[in-house]
């Protein structure tokens, strides 16, 4: 009897050891799984994993505001014993402890997309959101010929990346466009498109003479496009937004969205996994990598180099039809 138990446990330990030694496992943890943006990150990570011959584990919280669940996911991956973690933290403070716990167990962590406080992670790869906001301000000012009433619809409270875009946008306008009047800068839409739509309708009623609008992400951009449509002001009011989806692309094509700032999620996922692997091999990796943004309009949306960013090969790397 004892022999049998010994045998079973030996097999068990052996199989555990095998599953670990056979292939390097890298966990990629997004903020959420619902939007196109994260699919781009996933596909980029999958491409890097394929090139490196490592196994990519992909898991994110069900809601893009659920810090608790993301913390649990990081902890679960630590207990599973993954070799490296690539994380897009939902909160710059709340995720510090689990990341430290991973680093203490010699699991290198690469942060992508949004910032994290502390210094123990290996590398930080993200869009310069502040500069992206400045770019949006510059483009909107050009579209308006340098003058006119403008408002900004903020996204949800506590979102680091959209907050930086909003600040970058406001700072650029204040410093460089004296004839642009910022009529409302303090209204938050909340987390869903419907709320952004309603906030947009309400603000348009209050400021009927507005000429330009800035939105810091996908939900607000699409919500405000709908608000302009329902108010009969689409096209006449210049809407500059953020992020690229099929729905947003349609808006750009019809001219209802003047243009959007687009990040490169595919590259973020790709570089994230590559960097995590390099750190795992003991290589010295750069502490900070800033990925570029582009401004997509009706004129340039079909250019090959723009399409390489807006339409990454998601289906190819994620086996989707």
């Amino acid at each position, binding site marked *: 009897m004892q022999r049998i138990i010994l045998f079973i446990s030996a097999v068990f330990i052996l199989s555990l050891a095998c599953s670990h030694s056979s292939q390097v496992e890298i966990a990629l943890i997004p903020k959420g799984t619902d939007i196109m943006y994260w699919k781009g990150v996933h596909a980029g990570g999958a491409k890097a994993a394929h090139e490196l011959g490592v196994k990519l584990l992909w898991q994110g919280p069900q809601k893009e505001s659920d810090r608790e669940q993301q913390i649990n996911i990081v902890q679960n991956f630590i207990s599973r014993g993954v070799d490296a973690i690539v994380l897009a933290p939902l909160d710059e403070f709340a995720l510090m402890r689990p990341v430290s716990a991973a680093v203490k167990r010699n699991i290198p962590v690469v942060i992508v997309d949004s910032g994290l406080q502390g210094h123990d992670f290996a590398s930080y790869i993200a869009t310069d959101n502040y500069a992206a906001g400045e770019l949006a301000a510059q483009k909107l000012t050009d579209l308006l010929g340098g003058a006119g009433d403008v408002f900004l619809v903020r996204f949800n409270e506590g979102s680091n990346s959209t907050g930086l875009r909003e600040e970058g946008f406001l700072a650029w306008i204040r410093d460089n466009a004296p004839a642009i009047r910022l009529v409302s800068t303090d209204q938050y839409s909340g987390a869903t498109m419907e709320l952004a739509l309603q906030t947009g309708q309400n603000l348009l009623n209050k400021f009927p003479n507005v000429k330009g609008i800035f939105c810091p992400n996908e939900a607000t951009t699409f919500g405000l496009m*709908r608000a302009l449509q329902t108010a009969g002001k689409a096209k006449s009011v210049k809407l500059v937004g953020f992020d690229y989806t099929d729905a947003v692309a349609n808006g750009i094509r019809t001219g209802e969205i003047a243009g959007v700032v687009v990040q490169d999620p595919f590259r973020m996922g790709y570089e994230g996994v590559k960097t995590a692997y390099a750190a795992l091999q003991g290589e010295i990796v750069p502490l900070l990598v800033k990925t570029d943004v582009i401004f997509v309009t009706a004129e340039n949306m079909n250019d090959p180099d723009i399409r390489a960013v807006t339409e990454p090969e998601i289906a190819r790397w994620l086996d989707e039809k």
Partner: protein
Amino acid sequence: MIKRLQDKLNVLGPFLGLIFVFAIFIALAPASFVSGYNLKTIITQTVIVGIGALGMTFIIISGGIDLSVGSLIALVTVLIAKTLTLTGADSATLVWGAALVAILVSTFIGFLSGLITALWGIVPFIVTLGMMQIARGVAKWLANEQTVVAPVTGLNTMMNVDPEPAWLIFAPGVWLMIGLTAIVIFVLKYTVFGRYVFVLGSNEQAARLCGIEVRLHRILVYTLGGAFAGIAGVMQFANLTIGDPTAAVGLELDIIAAVVIGGGSLSGGEGSALGSILGALMMAILRNGCNLVGIPTYVQNILIGSIIIGAVAIDRLKHK
């Protein structure tokens, strides 16, 4: 006589609250708050919560609760967008057919919630909490975890603040809400089914002893709730014009709040369709007014919370 006075107070309470909130914003907000266009905006923004609240009124009067409404709304938007994309949305029949199919699916899920509640005797809070997750999951699965773009159809104009033709004054969705409210008022007041729903919520034991088919009526109530959630989902689709599996997260709580502000009691036996619509309207006014005055979002949360508690507290006082 006193009963009749109480009935009047039940509708009067939320109505007075509404006027109070409205008056405050007239004082605080810029003149554009009372412009015809802004009033139309507010009432259009009431439609989704309002229609959802009509279904919830049946459920809450019967002593139940439905937490799955927000998820059902999201599922319906995805179903419509998917159907329209797959069929190409060539004819008006197809478009309305897609909406109808989505409403039927939502109705069926409501029926399932009712069936499980009635047959297995599980409390509706748990059953619909589970259904909330299931419907949300199915919506995300069908949508491939992203928003679903749909072809442009006549459905999209249902929620236009300025409707076409212009003589409609309000968006078709608003008229639909008004029509449905009238129907629900009638059903609750003058039909046997409506009276049974009240009896069910006031005293289930008595209802059973009177020979009312308690299980059947419970199932019917949740089926109706599913149907109204489905219609609210169609309006949500009209508003967004895309299928959004993350739409309406937490909206069921707004809907429950509307019913409660309108005089509904979570212990059952009380509530009115008109009150629920007024409750929904009050929340839309608050949100719109806060945007126009420029009050931060956190103040809106505090205000709406206070109104929910205040409305129920006043209700308690009336009953003493």
